[in-house]
């Protein structure tokens, strides 16, 4: 009877997954057109371009641009707490050296280097007078295909578990996820390796639910001090629901519950309930 309930649970979850998949396709397409990120032009005209000699310490592949905003604060380090020590003016030439998180290191004509905030760089002009944009990844850019990396903590059938996940978003609603979990319990330790399809029917919501279907391998090793048995390797089917909430442009918290249905070689298949809390970062 138990296997029947398990199967029924999985079937219901699958049905939910597919219905929401169909329902949301239209809604997502409509939202996509709204979420275009165009830099806002200011009242100032694009600055005139002058030939400027590249400072000796600037690498050849560093991109040369001209400031189009009225001014640009340069900090001593890549963070809001580091002091502003210089201000680049409208029309000044600078070179983009490297990026760390949401800050860019720039060099000026006279060799000063400092860090500017990416959000302040919405008006830079290239050699041909074209607008140069520095991308700021954002979960709301639903049309961009991105990887996300996450850590989780949870409970796997009574055992503490730690997890790592790497996802890739194909469309606004659908992602694939590789998941690895290590659980340490009083009677047995287990490892799971899974590939799952994750469907987010409403990706633009602040609190966005998701459904998950997957399959993988579960390795269970009973603790040697209690009983001497061999490791078991079972194929597992995964169904789950969860919710994601975005705290910032790239950082999301997630909570989920999942049902692992282990297809064992014993008489009964085994069912495992798992919950997880964790975070995801858009790379």
């Amino acid at each position, binding site marked *: 009877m138990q296997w029947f309930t398990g199967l029924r649970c999985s079937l219901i979850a699958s049905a939910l997954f597919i219905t929401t998949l169909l329902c949301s396709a239209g809604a997502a397409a409509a939202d996509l057109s709204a979420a275009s990120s165009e830099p806002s032009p200011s009242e100032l005209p694009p600055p005139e371009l002058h030939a400027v000699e590249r400072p000796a310490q600037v690498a050849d592949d560093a991109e040369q641009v001209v400031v189009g905003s009225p001014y640009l604060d340069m900090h001593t*380090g890549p963070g809001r707490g580091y002091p502003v020590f210089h201000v680049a003016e409208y029309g000044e030439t600078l070179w*983009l050296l490297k*990026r760390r*998180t949401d800050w860019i290191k720039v060099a000026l004509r006279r060799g000063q280097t400092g860090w500017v905030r990416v959000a302040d760089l919405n008006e830079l002009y290239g050699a041909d007078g074209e607008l140069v*944009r520095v991308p700021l990844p954002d979960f709301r850019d639903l049309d961009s295909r991105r990887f996300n990396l996450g850590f989780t903590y949870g409970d796997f059938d009574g055992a503490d578990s*730690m997890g790592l996940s790497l996802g890739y978003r194909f469309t606004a609603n659908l992602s694939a996820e590789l998941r690895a979990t290590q659980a*340490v319990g009083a009677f047995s*330790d287990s490892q799971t390796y899974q590939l799952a399809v994750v469907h987010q029917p409403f990706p633009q919501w602040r609190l966005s639910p998701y459904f998950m279907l997957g399959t993988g391998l579960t390795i269970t090793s009973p603790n040697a001090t209690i009983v001497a048995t061999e490791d078991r390797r079972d194929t597992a089917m995964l169904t789950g629901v969860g919710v994601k909430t975005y705290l910032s442009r790239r950082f999301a918290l997630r909570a989920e519950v999942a049902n692992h249905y282990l297809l064992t070689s014993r008489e009964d298949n085994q069912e495992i309930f798992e919950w997880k809390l964790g975070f995801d970062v858009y790379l």
Partner: protein
Amino acid sequence: METGFRRLSVAALLCAGISSAWAQGSDDPLGGLVSPDLERREIREAQIDSENIEVTAYLGGIMNVEDFGSNALYGGALAYHINEDLFMEAAYGQSELGESSYERLSGSAPLLTDEQRKLSYYDLSLAWNLFPGEYFLFDKLALNSSFYLIGGIGNTDFADDSHFTYNVGAGVRVLTSDWLAVRLDFRDRVFDHEIFGEAQTTNNLSAQLGVSVFF
């Protein structure tokens, strides 16, 4: 459904409008006056190298395992900087268990074999750069730094057993250049073990000095 109909009717109207404009052709008296005079803006993305990954090697470290003394710690960490405030880190380390005071005082056979005294851990943590700042050295040198709080979960393996481990700690990172930093890290690893017969929760402190490279 309603939006679908609305969209359809707008599309139909547009088609009708365009076809009527075609039909008028050059007879349009306003043709030269209201031609759009907007220049198309060309936009491209900047080519720029991101350095958000930090690899740390522990140059020297010491780990105390409760009841088993302190021993040298070797290891490293791989971090991804999410924004100026947060970074996530996966770490690995190796140490050894010494002789417990019970083994030394009672003179009985050792509790663990040499193989069982080898300890290794790995963990996943999230850290918060709580106090970014600068250290001033002499007249003209200021080094960027940050004091961070870190915590996470992991696994510690020793005595043929895995132990689920919580870790909390704090550290200081001093950047000698944009890509090279020195880190001093203090951590408490909390796990349960049953080596002495009954389960006990242990606090195991470690301190390590590391060098890290950003790329």
